[in-house]
């Protein structure tokens, strides 16, 4: 398009802007999750995450310290302090002591409360509450403040999710369970598939074409069909629900793609290399181990990424073959679905859990994107 677009600078700009818009649209939802995971539940519930990046004007309901904190100065009883937590950079533009008149006073003004005490609030939230009589009650009076709050972020949510949270909020165990499912389920099919792919690519035998066609067919068989028959089978041979079952299931379901990808790649290895090795007296086994396997590394890597992403992100296979009634072996996807049901409104917990679960695949994705793209190009049936 260079030649054409080059004639019209306006077209180039239209092009660039539309790409930026497109990328923005695609990135926006994920960004929302990321930003939300660093905000407190209150922040998420009171303002859109896109506002979290800029200072916002918020209506806050705050309290002075409780009457226990009062000190006697001459014949006055006084409470002094700051409405905000320490380190807050919020600035009050208006405040009031009555919910119906939240902007009755400006910063630095003094207002009289119903019980006769007077309250002074400064712009930075510092206040002085003084009364002629000793103050009583359990809590300090409410202050309704309109304040400009600078962006504030916290890692508290991650602490809850990974370390301190209770059983439903704590994702640490599910994280390790997911890892436990994923790694064997990624490694084992590669090896089985590599041998089969070599046989299908470089060995002559009757029925080879038929086998390849069968594998292309099995590529698209919905795994929904396999659920009940295999669960029955697992129960009959006594492994029931558990890691062994889920590893075997993932291996079986991953094999067609593995064989197909690897065969497509191996068939592209120059014939000369293999025939020279044969002439030199190498057996098929030696050729496979010494020549084919090292040369096929890119294809092995792309399948490994596919299988890793697929097993890490899987929900259905884990629910059917792994997670039993005790829930001890729950995986992250399942736990997040449960959180969606039970804590649908607690976005700080949800967003953080979801982000923890997608962080690992995203890391793998950005680190090994080259192999992923290569695998996609080889793997889509031409």
């Amino acid at each position, binding site marked *: 398009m260079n030649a054409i677009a080059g004639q019209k600078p306006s077209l180039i700009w239209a092009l660039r802007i539309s790409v930026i818009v497109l990328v923005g649209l*695609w990135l926006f939802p994920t960004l929302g*999750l990321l930003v939300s995971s660093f905000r407190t539940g209150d922040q998420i519930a009171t303002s859109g995450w896109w506002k979290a990046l800029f200072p916002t004007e918020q209506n806050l309901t705050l309290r002075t310290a409780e009457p226990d904190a009062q000190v006697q100065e001459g014949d006055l009883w006084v409470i002094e302090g700051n409405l905000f937590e320490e380190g807050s950079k919020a600035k009050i533009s208006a405040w009031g002591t009555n919910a119906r008149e939240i902007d009755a006073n400006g910063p630095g003004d003094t207002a009289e409360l119903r019980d006769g005490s007077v309250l002074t609030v400064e712009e930075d939230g510092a206040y002085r509450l003084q009364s002629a009589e000793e103050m009583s009650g359990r809590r300090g009076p409410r202050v309704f403040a309109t304040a400009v709050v600078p962006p504030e972020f916290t890692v508290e949510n991650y602490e809850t999710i990974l370390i301190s949270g209770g059983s439903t909020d704590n994702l640490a165990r599910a994280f390790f369970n997911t890892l436990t499912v994923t790694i*064997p389920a990624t490694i084992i099919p590669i090896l089985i598939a590599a041998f089969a792919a070599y046989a299908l690519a470089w060995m002559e035998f009757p029925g080879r074409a038929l086998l390849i066609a069968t594998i292309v067919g099995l590529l698209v068989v919905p795994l929904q069909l396999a659920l009940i*028959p295999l669960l029955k089978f697992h129960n009959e041979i006594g492994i029931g629900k558990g890691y062994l079952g889920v590893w075997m299931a993932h291996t079986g379901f991953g094999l067609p793609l593995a064989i197909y990808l690897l065969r497509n790649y191996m068939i592209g290895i120059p014939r000369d290399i293999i025939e020279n090795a044969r002439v030199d007296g190498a057996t098929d086994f030696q050729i496979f181990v010494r020549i084919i396997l090292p040369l096929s590394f890119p294809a092995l890597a792309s399948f490994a990424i596919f299988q890793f992403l697929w097993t890490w992100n899987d929900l259905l296979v884990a629910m059917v073959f792994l997670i039993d009634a005790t829930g001890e072996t729950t995986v992250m996807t399942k736990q997040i679905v449960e959180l969606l049901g039970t804590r649908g409104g607690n976005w700080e917990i949800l967003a953080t859990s979801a982000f923890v679960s997608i962080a690992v695949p995203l890391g793998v994705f950005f680190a090994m994107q080259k192999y992923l793209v290569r695998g996609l190009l080889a793997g*889509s049936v031409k």
Partner: protein
Amino acid sequence: MHPAIQGLLTIAFGVGGCVGYFYLSNIILDTLIFPARGKEIARNIRRANMVRPWLFLFPALLALGLYLAYPVVETIRLSLTERLPGGGSQFVGLANYKQMLGEPKFWEALQNNFLWLLVVPAASTAFGLLAAQLTDRLAWGNIAKSLIFMPMAISFVGAAVIWKLVYDARPPGTEQIGVLNAIYIWLGGIEPQQWLTIPFWNNFFLMMVLVWIQTGFAMVILSAALRGIPEETVEAAIVDGAGPFQIFFRIKVPQIIGTIVVVWTTITIVVLKVFDIVFAMTNGQWQTQVLANYMYDKLFVARDWGVGSASAMMIMLLVLPILVWNVYNARREMR
């Protein structure tokens, strides 16, 4: 035993077992059964080479047969039987299918599935093609592509959470934290909408999630195809005075139509199996049921294996044309 240790042991056993199997079976074949020495050396080597492919293939064939081929047959059988209360089962012919066809929820699922089939592959391919074409000659095109491609790595469940936040609704009068409602209010809407509970349209809000994920896939494949177009055809068109849109629709698209079909069918398969998104976001409520989730309901909630298997067969039936088409193409290519 701690699962992590069990996992490591499994890797060791699995990998060791595979390597051991392949290594030992080759040795046994070459030295014990058909030794490459003695009077019949030529015949023995030939025979060993006839057997060897099957040694290489055996574990894969076993796994494929057990985990994919056998279940297809078994599901057909289960869809024709009924479980009896005391265990055992009874052949009931097409009764399960009849029962399934009589359920409104099934028709709703089928109808929605067709809607998904119409919209998602078309939208993903169109967006993917657009993204591929726009980023084609940009200096920072690869970064843009990588960001559009990123949702591919996100699980359907993760995507469901991400989009639930987008669709979130707060009571009227309070600040909206879901971006869609915030825009809706900003544009002058009065009542914030519960997007996922509006029948018919909520299907599109669910589809959007899958389109968002699949566009990157379409873009990557189509972008490679666009790069493969011979420069001369484009140059010739420029010389003849074609505009950018003419070049795109008349020169480029016809040359990659084969790839577009592949992308389309691949996404169609994904759509037919879509389960997690619906399960996590609405679980089929508010008339958003799809076949895969309907099947899960039947199998594991209602525990009706007969009707569940029948609906699984329904999914298989929809996949079948693409399966046949893929096999046909693969065979033609091999000749």
